[in-house]
C-alpha cells in the first residue's frame, strides 16, 4: 500500500475512481469520431446504406461475440481474484487474451480483404463498386473508427498479457487485485465501443 493513503480500501477506491475518470476521457475521445459519423450519415444517408454492404455482417457479428466473451472472462478473472483462486485468475486472463487476439486476427482479414478490392482510406481509395462521389468518406470513417478501436484492443492485449504474467508470479490475491479491476474496466469500455460500432457500420439497412 502506498504511503499517502490511509488504508487499502481508500487506495482501491481511488484507483477505481481514477480509472472511471479516464474512461470518461476515452468516451469523449471516441465521441468526436461518433459525432463526425452522425453528421456525415445525416448528410448522406444513401451513401451509408450502399457502402455498408461491403462489410461482412457475419464476421462483424462474430467479433462482437468474441469481445462479449472476453468481457465475461475478464469479469471471471476478477471474481477469481476476489475468491483467492489464484490459478483461475491466470486461466481467465489467458482466455481473455486469446479472445482479444482472435478479434485482431478477424479484423486483419477484414481489412486486407478490403485493401484487395482497392478500398483504402482517404485519397488512396480506388474501389469503383459504389456509385457515390463521397464513398471514400464512409470508408475513411470505417478505418478511422475501427482502427482507433483496434489500437485500443492492442493496448488492452498488452495490459492483459502483463497482468497474466504477474498473476503467474502470484502478485494477486483477495487482498490485492486492483490492477485487474481497473484493466477490466478499460477492457469493458473497449467492448462497449464495439457494441456501438457493429450496428453503425455493419447493420445499415
Amino acid at each position: 500500500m502506498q504511503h499517502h493513503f490511509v488504508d487499502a480500501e481508500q487506495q482501491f477506491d481511488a484507483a477505481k475512481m481514477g480509472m472511471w475518470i479516464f474512461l470518461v476521457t476515452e468516451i469523449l475521445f471516441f465521441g468526436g469520431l461518433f459525432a463526425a459519423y452522425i453528421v456525415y450519415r445525416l448528410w448522406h444517408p444513401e451513401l451509408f446504406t450502399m457502402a455498408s454492404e461491403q462489410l461482412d455482417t457475419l464476421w462483424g457479428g462474430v467479433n462482437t461475440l468474441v469481445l462479449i466473451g472476453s468481457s465475461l472472462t475478464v469479469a471471471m478473472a476478477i471474481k477469481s481474484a476476489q475468491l483467492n483462486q489464484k490459478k483461475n485468475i491466470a486461466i481467465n486472463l489467458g482466455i481473455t487474451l486469446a479472445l482479444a487476439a482472435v478479434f485482431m486476427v478477424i479484423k486483419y482479414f477484414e481489412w486486407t480483404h478490403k485493401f484487395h478490392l482497392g478500398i483504402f482510406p482517404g485519397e488512396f481509395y480506388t474501389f469503383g463498386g459504389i456509385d457515390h462521389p463521397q464513398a471514400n468518406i464512409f470508408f475513411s470513417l470505417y478505418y478511422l473508427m475501427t482502427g482507433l478501436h483496434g489500437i485500443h484492443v492492442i493496448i488492452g492485449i498488452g495490459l492483459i498479457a502483463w497482468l497474466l504474467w504477474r498473476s503467474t508470479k502470484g502478485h494477486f490475491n483477495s487482498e490485492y487485485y486492483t490492477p485487474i479491476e481497473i484493466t477490466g474496466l478499460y477492457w469493458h469500455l473497449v467492448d462497449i465501443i464495439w457494441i456501438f460500432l457493429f450496428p453503425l457500420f455493419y447493420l445499415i439497412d
Partner: protein
Amino acid sequence: MSGHHISTDRTLLGVAGGLLILTILTVAVHYVYIPEPWSIMVAMGIAIFKATLVAAFFMNLYWDDQFNTLLFIASLAFFALLVGFTLLDTLFRPEIMPAF
C-alpha cells in the same frame, strides 16, 4: 477486502447470455424491413441496452459508488451536447445559392 461486491457465476453467465441473445436479435432485426427513422432507433436502442448491461453488471456500477455512475452518465451527456449542438448547424444549413 470487505465491502467489495463479488458477482456470482450465475450473474456473470446470465449477463453474457443476455448479451449473446441481444447480439443475435440486433442482427436479425437488420434483416427485417423497418422504415426510417425507426430502424436506426431500434438498432441503437438494443446497443444501448447491451452497453447498460456491460456497464452495470460487468463493470459493477450497479453495486459501486454512485459517483462513478454519475461520471459515466456525464460523459454521455456531454457527448450528446457535442452532437446536438453541432447538428443545430449541420442540419439547418440553407440551400446553396445558385451562382449568378
